[in-house]
Structure formats: structure tokens, C-alpha cells
């Protein structure tokens, strides 16, 4: 079960933004997408989310063509955390998070939704903001709200997240979905401080490890890629330059070529044997 792009190309105004790309997000893994500005990372994420149709190729989610699926079916198996949204109506933060439960509004119970929402709010560290108006938050705080919203969506009808708190009489109306679920995060760390960046990445990895979610993240920090991702896909100019296990792809040579900036691997004295930190050098002169 996977979310897969098969040889897709995407055109906008006669220009290829993505050309002949194949990539597969498998349940339970963390896939990082890396590349310079304008490489097509966000476009790839939108195509995988079924937001844009493709000129060539197909995108399949759990084996079914996303362009032929109802938005609701896709939404029950896949959550998207956007870079920024422009909502100006003063919903409370808790209500925005609860919107993530809407794909399940016909099959979920109020108690189940409430438990998941509170749990996601705690994980995203927005408990102190829960009753504030969303438009008044800072950029980083808004991102954490959308992380929580994506979490309650990707948790679906699964009740394993309730293990500590679930009351035994909490009747779940629908059977647990046996389809794999996916979470797509568009530059999730861009507006966050360092502590919250690591908190978010840990939450994402935990979803992959414990709940079997396929997580795709667009990242910019090489060391976050090596620390949190299983595989990495490197895009450049709309084409896939490299794809594979983090250890194979994240080499100074490849990164220096792709980012047109010298990048070195420096042995990490505190890390395990063979560990290295990737650093970019300031341009000389």
C-alpha cells in the first residue's frame, strides 16, 4: 500500500514544473523531499495530494487513481499540512484543529473526536493557545495548529491513539480502515523555533513508526533529513536527481552539485561511530 507517482509530468503555462517523476511513499516510512528553491517540491506534494491534475502519468493512492477518486475518500486516508493558510474568520484554535475530523463526521463519535483533538493539541504544544482566535497567532503557532489538524485527520478511526485514555464504552461506529494512511507536510519546520522543529519531526517519525503512516516532508535542513528521514528524494529543476536511502543520497558531492554551494561532511565527535554533520560553507570573498 503506497502513495505513488508513476512517471508524472506537470505543466503550467507551457513550462514543465515536474518532468517524468516517479516516487513512492510507502506506509510506515519517512520520506524527505529536498531541493533548491523552484525545484518543484511543493508542486510534487500538491500533485500527490490530488490537488493538481498531471499532464502525463498517474498518481495512485492505495492502488487507486487519485484523479478518479472522490475528495472524501482521499481525505480519509491522507492529510496535508500546508505551508500557510489565509483564514481571516476568527475561529478558535481548538475549532480549527477539530476541522481535521470532518472527513469522518458521518462515522465518528463526538467523544472520539474530542479525545483525538485534545491529544493532537498536546502533541503540537498549542494547549495554551487552544481558546485563542486563530488569525491572531504568529506564523509558527499557526503551523503547529495545522500540524494538530493534520494529525487528527491522519489518525482517522484508529483508536490506538486512545490507548491510555479511551473509555471502554466508547463505541466506534465504523470498522478500522485497513488502507494505509499518509501525511504530507509542506516545509513543516519553516516557521518554527529549533525546539518545536525537533518536536514536530519527532511527532512525524513517531506516526510513521508506531501508526504505520507514510510521511512525506519537504525539508531544507540536511541534518534534519539525516536524523529523521528513512529515504530522501532530491529534486532539481523539476527532475528527480537522486532517490534512495538517506545514507546513500546525502553525500557532500551530490548535495554540493545540486545546491551549487560547497557542502562538507564533518565527523560528529559526540555521535556514534562514522556519524557526520553536513555543513554548508559561507561563500568566500
Amino acid at each position, binding site marked *: 500500500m503506497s502513495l505513488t507517482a508513476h512517471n508524472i509530468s506537470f505543466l503550467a503555462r507551457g513550462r514543465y514544473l515536474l518532468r517524468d517523476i516517479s516516487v513512492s511513499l510507502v506506509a510506515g516510512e519517512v520520506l524527505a523531499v529536498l531541493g533548491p528553491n523552484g525545484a518543484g517540491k511543493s508542486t510534487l506534494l500538491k500533485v500527490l495530494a490530488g490537488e493538481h491534475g498531471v499532464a502525463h502519468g498517474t498518481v495512485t493512492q492505495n492502488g487507486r487513481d487519485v484523479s478518479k477518486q472522490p475528495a472524501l475518500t*482521499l481525505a480519509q486516508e491522507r492529510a496535508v499540512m500546508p505551508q500557510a493558510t489565509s483564514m481571516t474568520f476568527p475561529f478558535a484554535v481548538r*475549532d480549527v484543529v477539530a476541522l481535521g475530523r470532518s472527513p469522518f463526521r458521518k462515522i465518528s463519535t463526538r467523544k472520539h473526536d474530542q479525545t483525538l483533538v485534545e491529544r493532537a493539541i498536546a502533541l503540537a504544544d498549542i494547549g495554551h493557545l487552544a481558546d485563542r482566535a486563530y488569525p491572531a497567532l504568529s506564523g509558527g503557532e499557526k503551523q503547529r495548529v495545522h500540524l494538530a489538524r493534520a494529525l487528527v485527520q491522519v489518525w482517522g478511526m484508529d483508536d490506538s491513539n486512545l490507548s491510555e485514555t479511551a473509555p471502554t464504552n466508547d463505541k466506534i461506529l465504523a470498522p478500522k480502515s485497513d488502507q494505509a494512511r499518509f501525511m504530507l507536510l509542506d516545509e513543516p519546520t519553516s516557521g518554527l523555533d529549533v525546539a518545536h522543529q525537533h518536536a514536530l519531526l519527532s511527532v512525524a517519525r513517531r506516526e510513521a513508526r508506531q501508526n504505520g503512516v507514510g510521511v512525506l516532508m519537504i525539508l531544507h535542513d540536511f541534518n534534519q533529513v539525516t536524523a529523521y528521514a528513512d529515504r530522501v528524494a532530491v529534486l532539481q529543476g523539476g527532475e528527480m536527481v537522486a532517490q534512495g536511502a538517506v545514507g546513500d543520497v546525502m553525500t557532500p558531492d551530490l548535495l554540493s552539485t545540486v545546491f551549487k554551494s560547497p557542502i562538507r561532511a564533518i565527523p560528529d565527535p559526540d555521535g556514534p561511530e562514522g556519524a557526520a554533520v553536513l555543513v554548508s560553507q559561507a561563500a568566500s570573498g
Partner: protein
Amino acid sequence: MVASPWMHIPINRSVMVLMFLAVGLLVVTVISLGTGGAPIDLGDVIHHILHRMGLMGTGIEAFDARVLDHLRLPRILRAIIIGAGLGLAGAVMQSLFRNPIADPGIIGVSASAAFGAVAMIVAGHIILGSYYPVVGPYGVPVAAFAGAVLATGVIRVLSRQDGHTDAAIMLLIGVAINAIAFAGVGVFTYMADDAQLRSLTFWQMGALSGNGPADGPALLIIAVGAGYLVSLGTSLNLFLLGEAEARHLGIEVERLKRRATVVTALVVGAAVAVSGIIGFVGLVAPHLVRLVTGPDNRYVLPASAICGAAILTGADAVARIIVLPAELPIGLVTGIVGGPFFLGLLMREKKRRRI
């Protein structure tokens, strides 16, 4: 406790606001029934209503009963249905455009309806030729209706790009359509003779005095359309997050936009066909409601309908008595109150830097 989506079905603040509004509408209705050129005691009004419902044996004085049955009740029924339709149409448009200042009047749907009506009044015998007598009293309301639907269609087609519609562009195109429609109304007003001018004021300033045999079907369209629009609350909540986000959360965004705009056009077109242009109800009602319930459309939509009905019923009572023995066009009443309200709203938004 603020209402959370799909969390608090028990009685919370928003449900209480809905009940409070319903009671308010009832009170305004009774007061409005008693108000006018021939004042009727409120006790008598209630007595008469109960009598008609079969709860009280004896009726009230025959003259008062006739005034209530034949003049005020139908008129107030029109006010309630049209007010509800306009309030709801405004609330839906504000969510659809994700912009708190959208309103059927501002994006030119009302003006286009008036343009259709005015064109039919002044040039109907030319446009329809020998069919003019056949169409008879239906010609003008149908033209108003067609104007509203056509304007919405043009706005939708022009704002489409690459299969998507951009809400901000759509709003600006609506403003342009509004200007064009009013220019058209101006042209026909210039061409009109004295007799036609009198009926033109009806369309430009609004009136609830009724407009003939087409009223019944038009009111029915408003009622059915309003019923559909109220059911869109949850979808429109998601839409407020953004179009892409709504799609990620399982909403068929283009279908929602298509249906909501078309039904809104039907409701507004039918409302103009019955009563001419009555501005600002669609703007004022949802805003007053949001001040109390917050932005959750599951409550804002029904509450806007009730609030719009109460506003229009109240405004109608004012219109009937303020320049006795004459009657002020109701569009002037809502304009005099609504215009400054709109300005105040813009100032508030400016302060919040949301525009």
C-alpha cells in the same frame, strides 16, 4: 463555552442565540403587524392570530381583521421570506469569497436583477414584440430573475482560470458587473416615460407591497433555496480554511462553489423579482450574528436567515410609519442604516488589517 465544530450538540451559546433570535423575530413580527397607518392594539393582534389558529373563539373588529389578513400578514410574510433569503445569501457569499465584505448587492447580482426588470419595463414591448401581452405580469419578475442568474454566470465564467476560480478576482469582477448593471439601469431610466419612471422606483428602491402573480413561485424558490443553503454550513466552514485545504479535507470544492453560487443567485434573483433591490440586509445580518455566535457557519447560516427576516420586518414597520400617510421605499430604510454600518465595518477591518 464557545461552540466547537461537531462537538457540542447540547445547548450551548450558539443554540441559545438561535432561540433568542427566533423569539426576537416573533416579537418584531407582532409589533410590525400592529404598526402602520391604522394602528392596531398588540393585544388585538395576538388575539387575532390565536383566533385564526382556532385557539380563540371570537374574532376582533372586522376592519382590523381585514387589515391584518389582507394587507399586513402577506406583506410581513414577504418580509420574512425575503429577509431570510437575503441574510442567508449574504452569509453564504461571505464564506464563498472568504471575505467578510461580500454581499449580493456589492458584487452586482442585485443590480443585474434590477437591470433586467428595468429593461423589461422600458423596452419590453420592443424586446418581446407581439409576445409582450402574452407574458403579461410575469415578464418583469422573470427578467429580474434572469438578470441575477446571468450576472452570476458571467462572474463565474470570467473568474475561471485553469479550471479554478479565484475568490478575490471573482469579487472584483462582481464589482465591475455592479457598475455595468447600474449604468444600464441609468440608461433605461433616462429613456423611460413618466408612467414607467414610477414603476422603476419600485425596482431601484425596493418595496414589499407585492408585485403580482409571480410572487408566489418566487417566494417558494427563496424558501427552497434557503433550505439548501442552510445545509452547507459544515462544507463552508472547511472552505474558510482555504480552497486547497477544503479539498484536502474531502470537499469537492468546484462542485460546492458551483452549487452555492447558483443557488445564491436563484435566491437573490427571486428576492429582487418580488421586492426590488433591498440592500445591506445580506451584509448586516451575518455580521450581527457573528458578533455573538462566532464564525461557525453551522450556526451563522440559520441565525443569519432569522436575523435577516427580523431586520427586514422591522425595517418595513419603520418604512410604513415614518412618513405617514405616505410610505418610504424600504430599500431607502435599509440603505440609510446599512450604508454607515458597512462603512463602520470597513473601518474595523482596516484596523485589523484584514483587507
